[in-house]
């Protein structure tokens, strides 16, 4: 039982990172990014290219992945979403679907579809926490990564001037522009941070399982569940959301077998839409008529 809970917690950490990527883009850039799954996989494959295929030193791998992902974020905004400014939300969502399709094709073309094992910085041992309760070293890395990202995000949005300007632009982009804030750069930063969080989630997940486009892509899409449970725009809300999804998936697999992994999160989404569509922390968005 305790082992299961630890497993759920490790899984929740990954979901928290994915959910963070969904919420950040929804909130800062106003985009429901259905390409999150593909971008998660892309981040992990770029990392794998540097780490495994090219065998670069680890600091170079980390900085190189970060730089590539940030550059991709900038390109995504300047090439696509800046050009869609002023179009209805509908167009933005459809564009993310188109992006998802194109990224999947690119990834499959470059790296194929078979599963890979990534080069490990340290040997992935099993860590015994208590008597009979254990997890893998990479499970703990995932937890630490999630904690670091959330703590850093909290500090960034709370205390840094750039973070405060991002919140300002997220609340009212026209007023932000009138107040001299470079809204386009805020959006670029939104993409860069979201894609970085997504890449970290993808890498951690790939270390805990294997690296395959299909697996990481599906995880990224399921990451909308913790975001929705938390209210789609609340970064705080992602944490309980991720815990709920982590528990649902872990116990779903325990009760109904391995294939439940694919649907547990989606069932939670339908239940949330039925009983509390605005999520646990979201503002009520019901259409007033």
């Amino acid at each position, binding site marked *: 039982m305790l082992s299961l809970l630890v497993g759920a917690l490790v899984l929740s950490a990954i979901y928290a990172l994915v959910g963070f990527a969904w919420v950040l883009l929804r909130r800062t850039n106003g985009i429901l990014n259905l390409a999150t799954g593909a971008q998660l996989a892309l981040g992990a494959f770029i990392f794998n290219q540097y780490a495994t295929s090219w065998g670069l030193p680890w600091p170079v791998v980390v900085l190189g992945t970060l730089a590539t992902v940030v550059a991709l974020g900038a390109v995504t905004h300047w090439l696509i979403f*800046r050009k869609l400014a002023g179009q209805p939300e509908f167009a933005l969502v459809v564009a993310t679907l188109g992006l998802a399709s194109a990224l999947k094709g690119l990834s499959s073309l470059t790296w194929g579809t078979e599963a890979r094992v990534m080069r490990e910085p340290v040997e992935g041992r099993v860590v015994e926490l208590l008597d009979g309760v254990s997890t893998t070293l990479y499970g703990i890395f995932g937890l630490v990564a999630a904690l670091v990202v959330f703590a850093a995000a909290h500090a960034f949005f709370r205390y840094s001037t750039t973070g405060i300007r991002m*919140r*300002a632009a997220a609340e009212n982009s026209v007023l932000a522009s*009138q107040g001299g804030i470079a809204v386009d750069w805020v959006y670029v930063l939104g993409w860069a941070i979201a894609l970085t969080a997504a890449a970290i989630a993808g890498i951690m997940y790939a270390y805990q399982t294997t690296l395959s486009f299909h697996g990481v892509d599906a995880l990224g899409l399921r990451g909308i569940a913790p975001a929705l449970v938390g209210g789609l725009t609340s970064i705080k809300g992602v944490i309980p959301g991720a815990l709920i999804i982590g528990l649902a998936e872990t116990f779903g697999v325990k009760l109904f077998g391995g294939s439940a992994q694919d649907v547990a999160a989606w069932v939670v989404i339908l239940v949330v839409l039925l009983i509390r569509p605005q999520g646990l922390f979201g503002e009520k968005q019901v259409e007033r008529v």
Partner: protein
Amino acid sequence: MNEPLLQVRGLTVSYGGGSVAVDQVDLDVHDGEVCLVLGANGAGKTSLLRGIGGFAASERGRVRSGKVLIGGADVTGRPPRTMVGHGVVLVPEENKVFRTLTVGENLRAAPMTGDRGSRRELLDEVVSLFPFIRERMDLPAGQLSGGERQLLGIARALLLKPRLLMVDEASLGLSPIAVRKVFDSLHSLVAAKGMTLLIVEQNVRAARAIADRAHVMVSGTFALSGPAREVLESEQVRRTYLGLEV
């Protein structure tokens, strides 16, 4: 006389390619001048300020034709952030503050220029103009009173070192006491700093004390222009805006 700070020539503003809100307006604002635009709801006053201050890419409004010059430089149709760079800062009619940010964060959100010392100095100067800010630093701006929100919006604009400050309907929805406070502040700004102002106002009595020139806007064009005293004393304005009380 010198070249005007702001020159507007034949400005036409429309929304979504359809309705024209401002139709071929000419306007000059000189350095240190306070210019007042009067008019009924829907006359195009806000659109005039927005046409000068610029529309964001996400908005439907566009400058369809005409020119806007700041200090002789053509800045027609530039987005708001570029206009801020040219010293044109607008305090909009609604949503003048970031409600989910605290008062302090609202001020920090303004990208100030200059070195650390001069930024500190300007911030202190602005806060001393609006003393309530110091007490409310950590309060979410959404919880401020209407008058305080108005003043915070102006304070944030001042941090951007405007050469031309545009204020849209400063008195809207405020109590008479709050209106007095806001206009006292504007008055002291003009007196102390020689601020150039372009204001849209329906509350003529509040604006009368500070305005140098006035324009009356009717369906997208200026129906009457001149020195504020003359325009505000004219039969038309007295009847329409001041009622029988004056």
